[in-house]
């Protein structure tokens, strides 16, 4: 299997990349790690006339802390996220989720920016971005804008990223004291997308849940923020009864597509179960266990 014909461009700075994007417009596609786009091109689900490879663009990689936020270059690979001590300490949900993505070889190529910008509801970073309340830096030909992850994902393969913009950086707040987190993912085998997965990040004040965010992967046309489930738990001392109520609320927003991973009912139930497990694990961690 070989992709269709295209012209290949390997710019070395972001200005060149943006200029190419303007020049070729709708015909152009940005190539990051390539592990979503190239498979789609082999199957002719995508057939761009021009590929703009970001792998040689300077300044799109790396993880640093700045003013209570962690800034992650969009071309940072999954394995670089996993290996980052800064992330493990300050945004541990990101490396936890990255470990569940694909396999070691794919994680050497796949990038956090590609995973987000692709807009695939089966990708894992979108749900993580929703619960960590990340923001994205989108660079256009004239200026850049910073948009919130919440509201960025519009539908399957559809995001707020404009055709003349490139996602260059992901910014994530450093976790507060008393934070617990978990990403629970059910997949059939290594390399598969989630049958269902749930991301949770919460903050305890004593025994009370001061703040919680819950989001689901592959349970609808985009990653879904489970606001009603969060409302059940916010301000409460979380117990099994409340976890069950929250799981039911999370299941109520599921709208998964039936495929070889299961029918809608099964996937919805698995999303509920992943929610229960992720809340329990996040609670344990917040309590220092």
């Amino acid at each position, binding site marked *: 299997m070989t992709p269709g014909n295209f012209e290949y461009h390997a710019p070395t700075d972001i200005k060149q990349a943006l200029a190419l994007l303007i020049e070729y417009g709708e015909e152009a596609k940005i190539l990051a790690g390539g592990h979503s786009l190239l498979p789609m091109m082999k199957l002719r689900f995508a057939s761009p006339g021009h590929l703009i490879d970001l792998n040689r663009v300077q300044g799109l990689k790396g993880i640093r802390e700045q003013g209570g936020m962690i800034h992650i270059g969009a071309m940072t690979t999954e394995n670089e996220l996993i290996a980052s001590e800064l992330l493990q300490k300050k945004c541990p949900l990101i490396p936890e989720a990255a470990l569940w993505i694909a396999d*070691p070889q794919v994680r050497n190529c796949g990038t956090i920016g590609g995973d987000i910008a692709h807009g695939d509801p089966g990708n894992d970073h979108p749900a993580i971005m929703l619960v960590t309340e990340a923001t994205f830096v989108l660079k256009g030909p004239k200026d850049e804008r910073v948009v919130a992850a919440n509201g960025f994902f519009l539908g399957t393969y559809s995001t707020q990223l404009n055709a003349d913009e490139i996602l260059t950086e992901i910014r994530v707040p450093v976790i507060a004291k008393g934070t617990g987190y978990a990403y629970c993912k059910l997949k059939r085998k290594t390399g598969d997308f989630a049958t269902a997965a749930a991301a949770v990040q919460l903050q305890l004040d004593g025994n009370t849940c001061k703040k919680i965010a819950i989001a689901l992967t592959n349970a609808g046309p985009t990653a879904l923020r489970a606001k009603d489930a969060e409302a059940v738990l916010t301000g409460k001392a979380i117990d099994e009864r409340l976890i069950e109520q929250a799981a039911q609320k999370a299941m109520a927003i599921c709208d998964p597509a039936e495929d070889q991973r299961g029918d809608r009912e099964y996937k919805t139930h698995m999303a509920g179960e992943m929610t229960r497990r992720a809340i329990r694990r996040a609670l344990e961690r917040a309590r220092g266990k």
Partner: protein
Amino acid sequence: MAKKNISFTLNGGQVETLVEPRELLIHVLREQLGLTGSHIGCETSHCGACTVDFNGKSVKSCTVLAVQAEGGTVITVEGLAKNGALHPLQEGFMQEHGLQCGYCTPGMLMRSYRFLQEIPNPTEEQIRSGLSGNICRCTGYQNIVKAVQYAAKKLQATGGK
């Protein structure tokens, strides 16, 4: 589409070839450069049979464009043995019966080659997760794990040579 001239280091030597942008690294390695050790299994980045070492990392060469290799360094299974002596990993796969049909073996070897540089003294669990991107349909993996353990021991004893 206009072909591009690419040049990169392959198994220690410099190679130059003309490729279409759409050509995958695995196809260029096998069909143009004649190195048929790396295998095409699934061509969908699942099976790992096409795993090669690219710029110091394991990649699935069915999901890398050949043009992306420009200026880079690639090692394939043909680059493992030195001066006719098998690499400790190749020896391990032989001694421990780490293969049956052998189709997945070049990918297993190349992934293990990089993995043992990342984690020179791995636990069984680390080996299993480190090789989780490589599928074997014959062995049940037991002897592959043993082969990697064999090589790890030998490499440690000889200081990674």
